[in-house]
């Protein structure tokens, strides 16, 4: 299974909402990277990732999120993850990402 993305701008909350579906891995990470950079160029804002259907992420995918986080942080925006599966939450905790990202 590969990665599917659904992005939209939420006007009332003034943030990007990105639904992540499938697997973020060595093969699909560039899809994510390109999408995030495009959105951020279009409009700088907070980012909310909806992760109900995110099945897998590896260190190359986490790397994309970390470098993106550093970009967004410069503009003082936040990056939020919603509904992470237990197995993925575990990796966020293990690698300390639960400390830099907001998770709910």
């Amino acid at each position, binding site marked *: 299974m590969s990665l599917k993305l659904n992005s939209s701008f939420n006007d009332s909350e003034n943030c990007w909402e990105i639904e992540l579906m499938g697997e973020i891995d060595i093969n699909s990470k560039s899809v994510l990277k390109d999408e995030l950079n495009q959105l951020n160029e279009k409009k700088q804002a907070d980012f909310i990732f909806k992760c109900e259907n995110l099945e*897998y992420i590896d260190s190359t995918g986490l*790397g994309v999120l*970390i470098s993106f986080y550093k970009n967004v942080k410069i503009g003082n925006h936040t990056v939020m993850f919603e509904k992470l599966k237990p*197995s993925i939450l575990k990796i966020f905790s*293990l*690698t*300390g990402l639960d400390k830099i990202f907001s998770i709910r």
Partner: protein
Amino acid sequence: MNDVVNLSLPSKPEYVSVARLTASFVANKMGFDIEAIEDIKLAVGEACNNAVLHSGSHDTYNLEFIRNDLTLVIEIKDFGAGFNYNNYVEPKLEEPQENGLGLFIIKSLMDNVSIETGEGHGTKIIMSKIIE
């Protein structure tokens, strides 16, 4: 006798998921629980990523899944550049970096991990997990 599954894959990103699928399948058949299966899948994925990204070899790499009563042993072996493991430093988790998480994740998720590598000699990583 132990069941052994052997897999050799092209050193390209798109095939890594075959290794993960095989790992999940074997772990599932052995009776690991869902959490452990996810751990094994990720550890195998990370080792394959390293073989593809760092070995510098554009040919193939091998995986061996050895099913051993209550222990699953997995060897991932490439024929590439190798590296000096003495220079390896664990990631500082307080200062997240884009790179350097792979081996740390593998060691955290598996029960036993050993690495045989040397510059110019390829890399073999042997990891195992025991059913609780």
